[in-house]
């Protein structure tokens, strides 16, 4: 009780703030956070897999493989994510005949977007390893699998991880933009609560804090992975 009274002094009292709404609607907010995390982590996983394939396609010798991959990357990297999401939501049903829920559209959009961004990071990471390493591994008579597994990938990973972490946090921030499609992520939950409660200062400040916390947590997890992989390459 004393703590609550402390909070209603000064500026809080002047603006008549009541942060207890965050506690009262913690369940709705928790579900919003879960959706936000799904919308970040699933596209990140898809982006890693598809992005690797695309980075291979972008560097392929055959133009028929290379150009579609390059076009995919350029289109997804050079248009606003909001336009991409709206396009996927309204155009995909027309082209494929299958309607998607806003959440599914969001998931597809972010996955394709992440694939394009991650492929560029993976491509430049592999390119930074240097041609001589490929040639030396080949000269040693290593098989194609061993060349990649033992020589190229261990050297590329430390170059890929830091920009990948940045990209992951950008992805988290991008999920907030999908609320315009009525995806039930944290941003949308906050907007809904605000339209009923009209406590914008408490709600949006908390939203900012939660997003920062999520971003910092993802960054910290990524740096653990970075340290682990650095340790394993050093061995």
């Amino acid at each position, binding site marked *: 009780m004393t703590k609550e009274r402390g909070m209603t002094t000064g500026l809080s009292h002047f*603006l008549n703030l009541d942060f207890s709404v965050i506690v009262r609607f913690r369940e709705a907010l928790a579900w919003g956070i879960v959706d936000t995390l799904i919308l970040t982590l699933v596209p990140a996983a898809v982006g890693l897999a598809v992005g690797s394939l695309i980075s291979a396609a972008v560097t392929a010798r055959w133009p028929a493989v290379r150009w579609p991959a390059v076009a995919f990357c*350029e*289109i997804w*990297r*050079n*248009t*606003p*994510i*909001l*336009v*991409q999401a*709206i*396009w996927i939501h*309204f*155009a995909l049903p*027309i*082209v494929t005949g299958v309607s998607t829920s806003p959440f599914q559209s969001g998931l597809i959009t972010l996955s394709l977007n992440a694939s394009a961004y991650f492929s560029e990071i993976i491509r430049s990471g592999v390119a930074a390893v240097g041609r001589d390493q490929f040639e030396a591994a080949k000269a040693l008579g290593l098989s194609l699998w061993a060349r990649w597994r033992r020589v190229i990938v261990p050297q590329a990973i430390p170059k890929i991880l830091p920009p990948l972490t940045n990209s992951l*946090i950008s992805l*988290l*921030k*991008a*999920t*907030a*933009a999908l*609320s*315009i499609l009525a995806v039930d992520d944290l*941003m949308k939950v*906050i*907007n809904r609560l*605000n339209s009923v409660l009209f406590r*914008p*200062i408490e709600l*949006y*400040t908390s*939203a*900012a804090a939660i*997003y*920062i916390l999520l*971003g*910092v947590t993802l960054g910290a997890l990524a740096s653990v992975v970075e340290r682990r992989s650095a340790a394993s390459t050093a061995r």
Partner: protein
Amino acid sequence: MQFEFDQVVRYWPVLLHGLAYTAVLSLSIFAAGIAGGMAVCYARIQPRASIQIVARIYIGLFRAVPEMVLLFWAYYCLPIILGVETPAILTGVAGLSIVASAYLAEIFRAGVGAVPRAQFEAGRAIGLPETLIWRKIAIPQILPVVAAPMVNYAADTVKNTTLLAAIGVPELVYNALSLGSQTFRYFEFVTAIGVGFFAIIFPLSLYARSKGAIVAARSRCGEQAY
């Protein structure tokens, strides 16, 4: 399936109006971001710890919060805190300019870092005024380093303006969506603005990439990067 791209031709003036908004918004946000970014960068490189920490928090905070959250915050909270009605377009431009200033401050800081500290000291040693050291020694070396990331951020600024649709600013996305809801031809309008955005953003990326490659190649050769 049937496409009616003649709808896009028919409502062309509405899209053009949105495009004008997008252009003016992008330019004013970018210009305000440069001015603010220079100020924040200047604070960030001060030796005084108290000033530096404020700049650090500013940069860290506005790069970490999603732009959408910041825009909604400004849209709903500023009128309560300031006690006056603030138009959506003003809060939107202010919000995105603050974000731009945080990102550009970091870009400028990297540029300042590319100038050897000894050159500032040499300038002071021969008695050059501080403004002259910046104008004649530092900035000519900073510009080529920051050009590529700045143009890249200009592309991001154009992308960010689309978020203003969420608070009702009638830019390109907002107009395309309202035309879509009137005609039920979302596909045509959204495709049209997608092509439009690509036509604006892709040349910026290409320019940044070629500029960045030149700077990287020169610094690889051990040459001064300009």
